């Protein structure tokens, strides 16, 4: 097992299909009790997440290392994360093809 300080050792939170404040709550649940230096990747398609995940990092003194806008159809190799849940399906039907955002967070103290 790799030490948690290596960027390769990432915990993924796929919050696509969840609406605010649930993506931030899922991230906080995941972060709870994890040692400083742990990397967490969050995927979210809720429009509020692009403001709220950076705000959570600021309020909790974690580091937001990257924030990347991605099209809803992910590049090949990430197909296991294609949002196919009924929840996401409903969201897409309502809001159209909006893509999602990938956040890379390093937990601090």
């Amino acid at each position: 097992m790799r030490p948690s300080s290596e960027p390769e050792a990432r915990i993924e939170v796929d919050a696509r299909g969840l609406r605010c404040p649930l993506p931030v709550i899922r991230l906080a649940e995941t972060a709870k009790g994890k040692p400083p230096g742990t990397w967490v990747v969050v995927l979210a398609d809720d429009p509020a997440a692009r403001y709220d995940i950076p705000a959570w990092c600021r309020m909790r003194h974690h580091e937001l290392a990257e924030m990347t806008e991605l099209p809803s159809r992910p590049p090949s190799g990430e197909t296991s994360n294609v949002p196919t849940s009924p929840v996401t399906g409903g969201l897409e039907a309502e809001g159209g093809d909006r893509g999602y955002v990938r956040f890379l967070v390093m937990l601090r103290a």
Partner: protein
Amino acid sequence: MVATAVEHSAILTTGRHHAAAAQDPSLFAEVPVDWSGRVDLRALQDALAVPGTVLAAVQCANGEIGTRQPLERAHELCGTHGVPLLVDAMACLGRDPAPEHFDVMAGDARSWGGPGGLGVLVVPARTRWRRPGPVSEVEHGRTDVEPMIALALAAAEAWRATQADRADQSARSSALLRRLRAAADHLPDVEVVGDPDNALAHVLTFSLLYVDGEALVTELDRRGFAVGTGSACTSSTLEPSHVLAATGVLTHGNVRLTLPLDPVAPALADGVSRFIAELPEAVAAVRAHLGAGDL
């Protein structure tokens, strides 16, 4: 056209529509604001310097977060570049001294306790102004319909009454808002939005981590308090308030308090005390419902 990123959506959607219809995004520039919602004057200056700029819109203060804009400086910059300044004074008329630095000012009689349905456009003699379209003789060519005298008189009477009591009203409102701000500051995991030192005395907005904004509005409503929210994920919108987004604060769990004028709410001080007493419980209840009580 140039506008701050926190202008009323009536201005922003019109500007964006205009640019989109002409397929030229450069026709409408949205000027960023800082964490408090105050316009970035350097960015405003850059936008004004773009050749062909014909109008700048800067509000006196923001109705959602209360932050006042540096109108005197903005008007100076506009003057330097020969661009007229439109000031949306909806949030501050009747509360703050009327703005002095503008070329055209827009207001709504409801802001000072007047009747709904009456807008006001203040055009000083120094401003060259012509109504678009054909000119009629009504009101010296400034409108094409006969004004509704009763509405105008009611608005003028409300203005007179509000102005007579404005200083006292403002002091009372400030004192209540200070108590509310202190109460909000004491909540766990809160971001109080806006500039505490240069904001309207009757507007307070704060965002709470791990709270569903609409659930909190409903919980407070159940307890007899009517508050607003800029959070998304309500029944009406998936997008959070553009004002919260522009300032970069937390957008979920948002509560917006607007203190009514005294004649509208004579028992306001009691209501504020009860709100302060019940707010922590209401927040805890909504957080517990999402299982986020100990995060």
